[in-house]
């Protein structure tokens, strides 16, 4: 990875290992380029704006959630609640701008609050995950399982299990709007990826995240506030899940607490793994997660565009994950 945040030694390895080293470090990029080349050759109308837009909009939510997931995994944790938090944010927003939760003095205020409150709620629940992990010392996979199970239930209670349909272009800009012909959500995604990548490499917070994932005891003895860093990381993951939830409902013009973000936790983890982030923590790459998500999306698109059913696409996705994680292991020999 060009962007692996733990700095690697300079690349003067023994020449014998070159092929393997290149495969491990740039495997995801090579796969992405290969996929694009294959598609240019076999998929009709691949090199069009429309194809690009379709793929970008499909991948946005996964990437945004994946960024938060990358940070959580970098500390040695995992966040299973992201899909449920998307559902909660997605259920809250229409309740607010449709005025079902409280009377609105002005529609514009309703829309503003519909952006802010659901995202804050998701962030607060993310912080709660972090609290469970640090204060009660529950293993992350169990701690976030709590909201994975309860979160979607909460969302359904809000809406009485009803589908909320709406048509509100000013709110739906986040999912449907375009700036200079580029989907707004793609711009948002790129902004989030760039910020997070920069943060992981250049800031104290980023270094602390990687130090905790690399050796938590050593990090603590070096004065790093482990609990507070972890809580912030889970908070960020919740915050980004909230944004992704809003994008999804805006795109669909409907919020279904049953379906928003369903299976997202697994897609996000898959993107992180394929991208080259170490699942045990301590080594992470945000750009890698972006590439990983793009690969998974492109494989699905390639198969669908060429008439292969969705079920087969799932198998292909699994195969990619196995390959990616196997490649990662190779660097440990």
């Amino acid at each position, binding site marked *: 990875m060009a962007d692996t945040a*733990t*700095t*690697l*030694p*300079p690349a*003067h*390895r*023994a020449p*014998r290992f070159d092929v393997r080293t290149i495969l491990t470090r740039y495997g995801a990029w090579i796969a992405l380029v290969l996929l694009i080349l294959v598609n240019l050759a076999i998929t009709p109308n691949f090199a069009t704006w429309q194809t690009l837009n379709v793929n970008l909009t499909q991948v946005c939510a996964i990437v945004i959630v994946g960024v938060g997931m990358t940070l959580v995994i970098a500390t040695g944790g995992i966040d299973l609640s992201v899909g449920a938090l998307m559902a909660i944010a997605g259920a809250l927003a229409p309740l607010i701008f449709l005025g079902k939760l409280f009377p609105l003095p002005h529609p514009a205020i309703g829309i503003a609050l519909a952006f802010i409150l659901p995202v804050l709620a998701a962030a607060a629940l993310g912080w709660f995950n972090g609290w469970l992990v640090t204060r009660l010392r529950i293993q992350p996979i169990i701690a976030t399982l709590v909201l994975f199970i309860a979160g979607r239930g909460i969302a359904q209670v809000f809406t009485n299990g009803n589908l909320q349909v709406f048509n509100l272009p000013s709110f739906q800009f986040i999912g449907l709007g375009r700036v200079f012909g580029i989907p707004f959500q793609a711009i948002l995604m790129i902004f989030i990826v760039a910020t997070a990548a920069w943060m992981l490499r*250049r*800031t*104290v*917070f980023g*270094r*602390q995240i*990687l*130090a905790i994932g*690399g*050796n938590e*005891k*050593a*990090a*603590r*003895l*070096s*004065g*790093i*506030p482990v609990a507070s860093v972890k809580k912030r990381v889970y908070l960020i993951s919740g915050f980004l899940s909230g944004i992704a939830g809003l994008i999804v409902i805006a795109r669909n013009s409907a919020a279904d607490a049953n379906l928003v973000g369903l299976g997202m936790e697994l897609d996000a983890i898959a993107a992180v793994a394929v991208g080259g982030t*170490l699942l045990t923590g*301590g*080594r992470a790459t945000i750009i890698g997660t972006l590439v990983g998500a793009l690969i998974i999306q492109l494989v699905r698109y390639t198969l669908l565009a060429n008439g292969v059913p969705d079920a087969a696409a799932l198998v292909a996705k699994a195969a990619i994950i196995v390959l990616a994680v196997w490649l990662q292991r190779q660097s440990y020999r």
Partner: protein
Amino acid sequence: MAPLLTMHGIDKRFAGIPALRSADLVVERGEVHALIGQNGAGKSTIIKILTGYYRKDAGEILFDGRPVEFSSPQEAQRAGISTIYQEINLVPYRSVTENICLGREKRRFGLLNWSAMHAEARALLARFKIDIDVRRPLMAYPTAIQQMVAIARAIGFEAKLVIMDEPTSSLDEREVEVLFNVIRQLRQADVSVIFVSHKLDELYAVCDRVTIMRDGRTVQVAPMNQLSRIDLVTSMLGRELSQVLHEGHDTTDTASETPGSVLEVRNLAIGRKVSDVSFDVRPGEIVGLAGLLGAGRTESVRAVFGVDKPNAGTVSFGGRENAIVAPSDAIRAGMGFCSEDRKLEGIIPDMSVRENLTLALMPQLARRGIVDEARSRAIVDRFIKRLGIRCTGPEQRIRELSGGNQQKVLLARWLCMNPKLLILDEPTRGIDVGAKAEILSLIRELAGQGLGVLMISSELEEVVEAASRIFVLRDGRTVAELHGDEVNEQSVMSAMAHGHESDREVAHG
């Protein structure tokens, strides 16, 4: 008869840096063979190549008359090579029996034959004169027992060659003697042993021949009884001994006249292990904490640094009492702490030398949360040069460094903070003689510049040589304060054994 093991012309490079250059190792049948060298000399690498952990770049290996190239430690084990690593590689939650029999379980009618396995585990441990409940989980026993279990496990594989990588580092004297008896038994049974250790006494006590390595080469092979200690050390270091030992033993007592303590600990009690510990450190002096394993030394300094909470007592640092409740408080107040276990609590293996070195300094290197990379590089370069850290560059991963160099990086992690007090828990454990001397003389130099140093070491010789005052702990209590002429091995040992009630009054007075 042909030797059991012949390794010839072994080459190995890591990231282009040669770790072994045409190294040789020959082990006869039924001999105990010492393998020694400084850290980074290539001992671990050659062992890991033999056991299939690494692949060699060139050279040949003959084992038991056949050319071999193992591709995994399991394969080596099946061929009859068992290894006991420095860090114990066992499963703490499983029973002693399971650990001993793991990988070669006895079966009957497709089920595990527990009674046979328990019997075998008991029989193997009986050879070490150890009688424990083999059904209890391994972690219920102290480290020394765990080490014996590791050895029993290795022997249980009916090995032709047993490799012991610093097997005695966590054993006390009596246990070492038991281990030596086992080694002698192995020799009688025509099993060969490769014995890696930094302790010269042990080598002369138990080994037949020695292979000395330096900078990835085999520099000398000789029968143990034909090689004097001086020659051995000289050959290992590649320089004159006088340069190494006692590089200016001039810790005069002037320091102790400086008034005012930087750290003062009174009547500290923590959990069950520490009941009444008192000591103090003045600026510019090296204070030793001596005591046997389990005397409460590590527990005491961890509480001082804010890692663990004390139940009672006062810790005054820089004039403020009990103000430290977390390591970050201690660091802000000007304390540094090199913990006992470098791998588990010190280094962040996947991070670079630079990132490891600046870990504690990072908040100060940053403006508005953004790390100033240029300044960080300048500081790291300075300390690499100053401490003579051997690495390919600041961006090399720390786990690729030898133990001694990792320790220097950890020292630098604190030194770059300009601390008032540095706590060192076993700073030279698992480090070769050369690096040890370097680190000790560095500590002395720093104390000369006004740094207070609190040092724990299990090697009496080292504490006595470095410290100007020594507090002796026994069973969680300070039993003696030694200074001046009392700082010698005899008085420390007698205090460890009996305690000096009169001296204790001094400590409190």
